[in-house]
């Protein structure tokens, strides 16, 4: 549904997006993660035909960016970083303008549908300027969906919202996911990405990594298991040496009185590890798996990207 090959954008000498290759199938919710200034919004603007790529190709909903721009605009919905509503106009009027611009069949019915879905129906005759931040965001989401787009671009959909409003928006996105739309979410809310997205791409000018949230959380070098020991610190290097010699073990770190061991298959390998430690005289207190948050993975990768840059 979205396919890019070597997509690049330069603003004078500044390289904003560098050779981006993506292939997002229909119905996928894709999270585009990166820090501020990483080039996420620039990418969305290229894919929604607001700006032209400097190099490379992109296809959205089967149409080529730069050649079929009007067709693409008709088939995508976009929630921009700021809602960009007409504050003096009512919620209804705001949506009616866009229903007309997208030439929506039976616009008023579509407007009613989305105002009701987003719990704004009772406020339809109030001006957008009188709305709270969360309501403005919901109204902007309704606007992006009026024409039932095949692809939906959401740029920081919960940015600046309170937890309740964020949850409402997230739940709504989950509902949209159920409808089979392709959704491209730009965010730096990693918790959100891990809950909503089928795959995430960590991006900083270049695409650093692309995988499912679960695979990213698993991290490089396998899963990590922690062994808490009731031993003197000077004994731990000895245990480390014994473990490193084992084929199953990828890596061992010492942290205070703990051993952090990377394994491909802890369920299978843990008994052998425990036997080795007991044979070495270790006093084992507790064993558990360390679950990396997406945030850990993100920070690590962004640090690496920073060093690369």
């Amino acid at each position: 549904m979205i396919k890019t090959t070597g997509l690049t954008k330069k603003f004078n000498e500044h390289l904003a997006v560098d050779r981006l290759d993506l292939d997002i199938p229909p119905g996928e919710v894709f999270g585009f993660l990166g820090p501020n200034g990483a080039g996420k919004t620039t990418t969305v603007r290229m894919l929604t035909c607001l700006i032209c790529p400097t190099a490379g190709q992109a296809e959205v909903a089967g149409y080529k960016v730069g050649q079929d721009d009007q067709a693409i605009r008709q088939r995508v919905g976009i929630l921009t970083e700021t809602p960009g509503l007409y504050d003096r106009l009512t919620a209804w009027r705001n949506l009616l303008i866009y229903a007309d611009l997208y030439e929506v069949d039976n616009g008023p019915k579509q407007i009613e549908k989305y105002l009701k879905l987003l719990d704004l129906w009772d406020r339809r005759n109030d001006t957008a300027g009188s709305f709270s931040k969360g309501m403005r965001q919901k109204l902007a989401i309704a606007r992006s969906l009026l024409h039932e787009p095949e692809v939906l671009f959401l740029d920081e959909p919960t940015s600046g919202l309170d937890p309740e409003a964020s949850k409402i928006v997230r739940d709504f996105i989950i509902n949209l996911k159920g409808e089979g739309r392709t959704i491209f979410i730009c965010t730096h809310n990693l918790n959100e990405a891990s809950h909503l997205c089928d795959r995430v791409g960590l991006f900083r000018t270049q695409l650093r990594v692309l995988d499912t949230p679960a695979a990213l959380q698993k991290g490089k070098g396998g899963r990590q298991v922690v062994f808490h020991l009731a031993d003197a610190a000077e004994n731990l290097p000895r245990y480390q040496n014994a473990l490193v010699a084992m084929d199953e073990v990828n890596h061992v770190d010492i942290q205070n009185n703990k051993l952090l061991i990377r394994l491909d298959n802890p369920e299978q390998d843990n008994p052998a590890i425990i036997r080795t430690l007991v044979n070495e005289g270790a006093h084992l207190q507790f064993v558990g798996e360390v679950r990396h948050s997406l945030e850990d993975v993100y920070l690590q990768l962004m640090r690496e990207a920073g060093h690369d840059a």
Partner: protein
Amino acid sequence: MHKIKTIILKEWAEVFKNRMVLFTVAFLPLLFLAIPQFSLQSLASMEASDTEMEEMIELARVCQQGADLTPMECAESYMLELFIVLFMILPVAIPVTIAAYSVVGEKTSKSLEPLLATPITTTQLLLGKGIAAITPAVVMTWLVYGVHVGISYFRVSPAAWGTLLDPLWLVAVFILGPLLTWMTVTIALMVSSRVSDPRVAEQLTSLVVVPIVLLMIGQTTGLFLLSRELILIAAIVIAVVDVILTYFCIQLFQRETILTRWN
């Protein structure tokens, strides 16, 4: 056409929610209606022996050469002609600030990006904004001119009143005026799509009105008078200029520059 109409209605809905804009659209035409009526009142109260009246009649005679009019009819006719130019420039003055704000205003309120993401063409967008800016001013001017013609019917001689329905002046008010207005609106839209601050747009576009104000001063002070030929030539030239400016206005509207340079 449907999308142009949507933009026009959107612009009106936004602009006229602001009462100050509504006030300026209504105030200036009423002021321009009052000025000639006040001058006609002054003329009527002058005595034939007044030096000013004598000078006025003399100037009017020169200007109305060949017309079979009494001295008073001549003076009235001359005065009406002097002020017709007001109705020509009236629609120019009103929409310039509306047009100047229309693009940069949307940019600063962040509503431009979602609008440009819709399948609207640049031509549709700019035509919608331009027509939305000029229509209230032009319609208001025509209405006020109608009122002016109506009131003058009871205040001046039939011979002088006929001046107001002279095809030349009707061309000036109903064709040249709107053409001049479109010219200034396209310039205002060009400025609005090239600057990043609404105040700069308004300051720059206010300069557009200066030549037209000078024209009005020249006409009302008797420095020169617009002739039939001059009005017709001006209408044709301005129509051509309008087409060229509209083309450039569309070409200069660079979506990418507008969205990225102004951040």
